[in-house]
């Protein structure tokens, strides 16, 4: 099936499920007409008051969606604190209960998101991360820094030794390239742990860069570092802490 036909079929299915219109009637209409007419001129097919109301709401949603895309392009999400990064990754990964997913937000000089990518997806307790893929994406988008995020489907909020090792391994690759790793957020259901807040983000290389795949495992939690008083409260990190190059 071509992409266009695939999308049209999906569109018709979505439209009928959302509005309660008959799929048969809509398909019949779409055989010889542009199916988008149904949104613009709902009376072209037989429909009741409730269905008409739903089409009105769908049109309102589409307008709002288009407007928001423009707003988001002009006003990108900016990570100016570890709590903001935590909320972002918690939203993005909080529902992943059946597998681990490793995601990276690539940031520009002002810590605005250039793009966010899923770098790997594994099983319930393990996933493998491929440094070459991360490097390829980082160079392609010309990022100045990155924030990692991955979930613990077992809902343990504790950092594992692999979480720390992978961060160090990636610092070993990116530090020489002057691409900073600002944070690594571990999401466990509705909570998260920020490695930056816990002061586990390495500042320097400790070995030669290795590009072998890295396995991260939810097990093997590390002991908590004694936290500094300023991290006791969920305070926003100021620009200086993440060394914004504005």
């Amino acid at each position: 099936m071509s992409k266009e036909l695939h999308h049209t079929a999906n569109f018709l299915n979505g439209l009928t499920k959302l509005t309660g219109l008959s799929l048969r009637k809509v398909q019949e209409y779409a055989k010889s007409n542009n199916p988008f007419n149904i949104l613009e001129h709902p009376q072209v097919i037989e429909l009741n008051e409730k269905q008409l109301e739903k089409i009105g709401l769908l049109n309102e949603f589409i307008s709002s969606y288009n407007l928001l895309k423009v707003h988001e392009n002009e006003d990108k999400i900016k990570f100016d604190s570890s709590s903001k990064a935590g909320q972002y990754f918690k939203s993005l990964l909080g529902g992943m209960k059946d597998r681990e997913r490793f995601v990276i937000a690539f940031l520009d000089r002002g810590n605005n998101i250039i793009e966010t990518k899923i770098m790997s997806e594994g099983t319930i307790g393990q996933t493998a991360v491929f440094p070459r893929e991360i490097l390829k994406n980082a160079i392609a988008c010309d990022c100045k820094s990155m924030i990692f995020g991955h979930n613990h489907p077992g809902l343990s909020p504790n950092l594992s030794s692999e979480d720390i090792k992978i961060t160090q391994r990636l610092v070993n690759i990116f530090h020489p390239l002057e691409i900073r790793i600002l944070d690594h957020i571990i999401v466990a259901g509705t909570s998260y742990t920020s490695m930056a807040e816990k002061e586990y983000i390495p500042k320097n290389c400790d070995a030669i860069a290795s590009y072998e795949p890295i396995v991260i495992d939810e097990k093997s939690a590390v002991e908590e570092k004694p936290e500094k008083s300023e991290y006791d409260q969920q305070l926003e990190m100021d620009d200086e802490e993440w060394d914004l190059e504005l």
Partner: protein
Amino acid sequence: MNQKNMEYKKMVDVMTRLLDLDAETERKVSSYIQNTGIKTFFLNLKSFNLPVEVQMKLQDLKAVIEVLDKDIAVLDFNTEGGDV
């Protein structure tokens, strides 16, 4: 409240009426969209902590908007990995 946040609020209100969402789901959807942005939200519906039936309704909504939004449409054919 800036214009973007007002638009988020308006959109979630429309989604609530269109998809018949309950108050708790409305609160979650609002928080997810404001935290991650609208594009990331629709590209990663399964990642969010939402009931399965709500995810299905959101997939239906995505099916309608993806014909209008190439960013989402292209990625629909590459759901394993890729952009968020």
